[in-house]
């Protein structure tokens, strides 16, 4: 199993980097289950217990929402490497940059149409670095992927407004780019006004558009030399970790009095200034280091014993959402504004199982078969493929793009099989394999996960016989597929036989799709699955 998945390499890495966040490891297991759920079926022992056929399409007591898509379709797509600053003015028109002075803000780019905020994974460049056009400056974690963000301008990264690990809303300034060293001080002043409040502030009043020659701020930078360090009688010395901590806890390092050797600022000083108790690591590390004779006995700052935070409830831990989890949460709440209903349908899968056995050696997966079947049914029922954007109209989609929910550890993503009705089964399987590889490597491009017009979710591999999916915002319907199980059925003449039955349950937006529409769609779907020869055509 491992090898089968592993073989497909990343077809191209594009400009994207792998995810470097150690906390997100992809659960191979769940992915594999998606492929192999039909193995479960063939292996499942004959069950004595009679399976009740789905009584009602409304399943009130089932588990909710393994399957929800984060994506919304047909919103404007954004190129993979997002330029910042003026280009961004398309989506945030009020933010038109005037060329007042050659100081530019670096904005949090919108890496997907659903992204509202992004987390800075790392700054590739640091303050004072010279940037040239096209270079990566910062790595941003969106709700779907890690992306390198490039600069479209030459210049100097004058200031970082939003540090590593912090989050900023789309469009907010995360850094300041100065064109020349002379402007660094000015840029820093600008950055200082930005930081603290990470909300995007209105652009500073432009004195006169185009008057780039006389910036004339009260603060005049004297000389191009000594750009960063303010010359003083005694400069501040802080250790590397102290600087990192200061950035993290937003402590103004200049205001901290160092207690370390030679008066330097140590990590402990920053922690004291930030009102934190000394970090566990330093306590835990029982290092038997000889302290240098010159070093004065480290006087722990008297204020280092703060009693500010109330202790948490014993035994509980608070883990903040990752960006992806936050996006899921937001979408789920949003989905409450859509009036949805559900229709279930039993589908006989004996013929599909037989077909699967036949085409499996050619690399066809069950996911591809189901997606293809759904796409063919959707082609006959364009209404189910439509969506309601504004509550006043139908939006018919010209393409049938099947999004398939995939669980990854700590998240959920919906790679999209585009034009699933037009591609043949083998191409579709190939495409799916590529998408899964990319999803695992966090390399999906926005259009590869947000262009779905219909979502497919499958929990059959867990033995779930039926479940209820939440309709992702921006789509008309989502199909929840349960496990296929041998079931005793009686035909019209009263003969009993055992057939494999699978329950599918579709959640739809009742503003546009009514019960009869959905029932007709399901009937078509069922016919296609029960006579699957057309899938291979």
């Amino acid at each position, binding site marked *: 199993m491992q090898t089968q998945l592993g073989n497909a390499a990343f077809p191209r890495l594009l400009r994207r980097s792998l995810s470097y966040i150690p906390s997100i*490891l992809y659960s191979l297991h769940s992915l594999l289950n998606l492929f192999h759920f039909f193995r479960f079926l063939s292996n499942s022992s004959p069950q004595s217990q009679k399976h009740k056929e789905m009584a009602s399409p409304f399943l009130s007591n089932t588990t909710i929402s393994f399957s929800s898509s984060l994506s919304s379709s047909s919103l404007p797509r954004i190129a993979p490497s997002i330029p910042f600053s003026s280009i961004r003015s398309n989506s945030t028109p009020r933010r038109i940059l005037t060329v007042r002075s050659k100081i530019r803000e670096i904005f949090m780019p919108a890496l997907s149409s659903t992204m509202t905020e992004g987390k800075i994974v790392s700054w590739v460049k640091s303050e004072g670095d010279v940037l040239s056009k096209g270079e990566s400056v910062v790595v941003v974690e969106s709700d779907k992927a890690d992306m390198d963000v490039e600069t479209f301008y030459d210049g100097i990264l004058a200031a970082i407004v939003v540090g590593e690990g912090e989050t900023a809303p789309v469009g907010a300034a995360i850094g300041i780019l100065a064109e020349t060293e002379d402007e660094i001080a000015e840029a820093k002043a600008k950055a200082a006004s930005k930081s603290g409040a990470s909300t995007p502030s209105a652009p500073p009043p432009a004195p006169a558009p185009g008057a780039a020659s006389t910036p004339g701020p009260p603060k005049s930078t004297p000389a191009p030399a000594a750009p960063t360090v303010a010359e003083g009688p005694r400069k501040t010395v802080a250790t*590397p970790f102290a600087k990192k901590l200061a950035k993290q806890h937003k402590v103004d390092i200049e205001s901290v009095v160092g207690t370390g050797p030679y008066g330097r600022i140590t990590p402990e000083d920053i922690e004291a200034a930030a009102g934190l108790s000394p970090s566990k690591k330093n306590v835990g590390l029982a*290092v*038997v280091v000889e302290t240098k004779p010159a070093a004065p006995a480290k006087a722990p700052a008297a204020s280092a014993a703060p009693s500010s935070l109330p202790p948490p409830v014993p035994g509980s831990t608070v883990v903040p959402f990752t960006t992806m989890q936050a996006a899921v949460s937001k979408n789920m709440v949003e989905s409450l504004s859509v009036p949805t209903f559900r229709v279930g349908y039993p589908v006989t899968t004996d013929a599909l199982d037989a077909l699967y056995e036949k085409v499996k050696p050619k690399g066809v997966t069950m996911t591809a078969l189901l997606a293809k079947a759904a796409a063919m049914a959707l082609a006959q029922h364009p209404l189910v493929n439509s969506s309601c954007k504004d509550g006043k109209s139908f939006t018919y989609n010209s393409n049938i793009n099947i999004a398939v929910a995939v669980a990854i550890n700590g998240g959920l993503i919906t790679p999209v099989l585009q034009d699933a009705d037009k591609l043949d089964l083998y191409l579709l399987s190939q495409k799916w394999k590529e998408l899964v590889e990319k999803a695992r490597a966090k390399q999906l491009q926005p259009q590869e996960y947000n262009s779905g017009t219909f979502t497919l979710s499958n929990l059959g591999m867990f033995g779930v016989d039926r479940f209820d999916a939440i309709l992702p915002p921006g789509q008309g319907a989502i199909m929840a597929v349960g496990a296929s199980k041998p079931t005793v059925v009686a035909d019209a003449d009263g003969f009993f036989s055992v057939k494999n039955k699978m329950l599918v349950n579709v959640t739809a937006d009742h503003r546009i799709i009514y019960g009869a529409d959905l029932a007709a769609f399901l009937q078509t779907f069922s016919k296609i699955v029960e006579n699957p020869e057309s899938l291979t055509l």
Partner: protein
Amino acid sequence: MHSTLSFSRATTVPTTNYAFHSQSPINLRFCGLRREAFGISILTRSSSGRVRLSTRGRSKRISASTGNNGTPPKSFDYDLIIIGAGVGGHGAALHAVEKGLKTAIIEGDVVGGTCVNRGCVPSKALLAVSGRMRELQSEHHMKALGLQVSAAGYDRQGVAGHANNLASEIRSNLTNSMKALGVDILTGFGTIVGPQKVKYGKVGFTDNVVTAKDIIIATGSVPFVPKGIEVDGKTVITSDHALKLEFVPDWIAIVGSGYIGLEFSDVYTALGSEVTFIEALDQLMPGFDPEISKLAQRVLINPRKIDYHTGVFATKITPARDGKPVIIELTDAKTKEHKDTLEVDAALIATGRAPFTNGLGLENINVVTQRGFVPVDERMRVIDANGNLVPHLYCIGDANGKMMLAHAASAQGISVVEQVTGRDHVLNHLSVPAACFTHPEISMVGLTEPQAREKAVKEGFEISVAKTSFKANTKALAENEGEGLAKLIYRPDNGEILGVHIFGLHAADLIHEASNAIALGTRIQDIKFAVHAHPTLSEVLDELFKSAKVLDMKTLRKMKS
């Protein structure tokens, strides 16, 4: 062995006593042996197509020999003398014995050279400690595995002892292996006094002169310290001192972010120090494939207690004294203007290594070093000031600067022995792997992507790049070490492997499948059928090869038409 020694003196030192001895039957045995070996090499030499050179060498040799003590020409004390008993010299000596050469090795310091005593070997001991410390300190990592460990600590003396013990153990292994095979270890600094003639001796003692048919210079290198930096061995140190781990500073600046600097940053941060890198180039980790160094920076630098200054020279470093810390003056690499001043507890100079070729007597044979390096051709034959090859003189390892790696020196030494025993051999340096033993490790062989692209443009072929992630590897995930990338640069038209770069768990051990493939000319379309045990880390390379897309003949023909 003792008799050999006395005989060798006899041929060179004009002492009647010894000359008389040379007639004695005891020495005849050695004579015979040597003649036999020599006879073979004459035959093979003439067949190797280097007749002109060898005749020139021989005529000189005759005069030299007759001029000294009248012993018959063609008689040498040794077939091969190696100056320097580092890893390169050791590798050459062992191979020479295997080939039946009478071999001596001259060492002025301790056997094992830089690698064993002040380099690769003791640093691996420190890195073994740092790897474990890092693991034990990573609460997140331990928790994920379900382990509970109370505070991890270390004893500096114990760690230093481990490094020192390892070095002496390897050193005695090396010494014993040479002694057991009958390699003469001559103590003293070797100097070339003329063609095929070397003198050696300790300072203050009389020199001994020995002759050999072929001579290999393998004197290695020493840490390079740029001017303006005052090394006191305590607070401003080189790798030589750092490996003794005499103290673990709270804050250490490391000048240079190559292999040595990176490895030490791994050691020091694991032991609780904070580190500041000073790098003259604009990017940290120059020399690595850019993509690998980018990833490595995200894993090895950014999350650790490390900051850095790039594009600056450390123009002046003053050791801590008079109650002042170590002071480092930084100068902008481009504008040459003063940029910053750092105050730290210690500074490690890891700016590379300089060849150790002073006092070798190269002027006696008209060889001029280039920035200290001995100029050689692709067969390690030394080139003199006029651009001509110096017969019977070879230089391997750090001293020639081709590829400053212990195993490269050894490979060059073996290549030279092959040549002097009659088999032409040219070492393919693109097949020599390199590794950096950080946690996780970095390894590489062949070209980096930019180098490959440049070559492709020049020679008019296409290249492709394939990558696999350690996140897809079962064993890596079992170890909870899924961070990593393997990258393959290849020619899609014929499947030639141009370069492989790995960053991830045990990368240094994984690279050899690729380096062997390059050395043997194995193509991707063949190696992708090789079977790997499951589940192992080596499947990362398996997947890498399998993911490469080599064009079949049909497609190629279509493209051409």
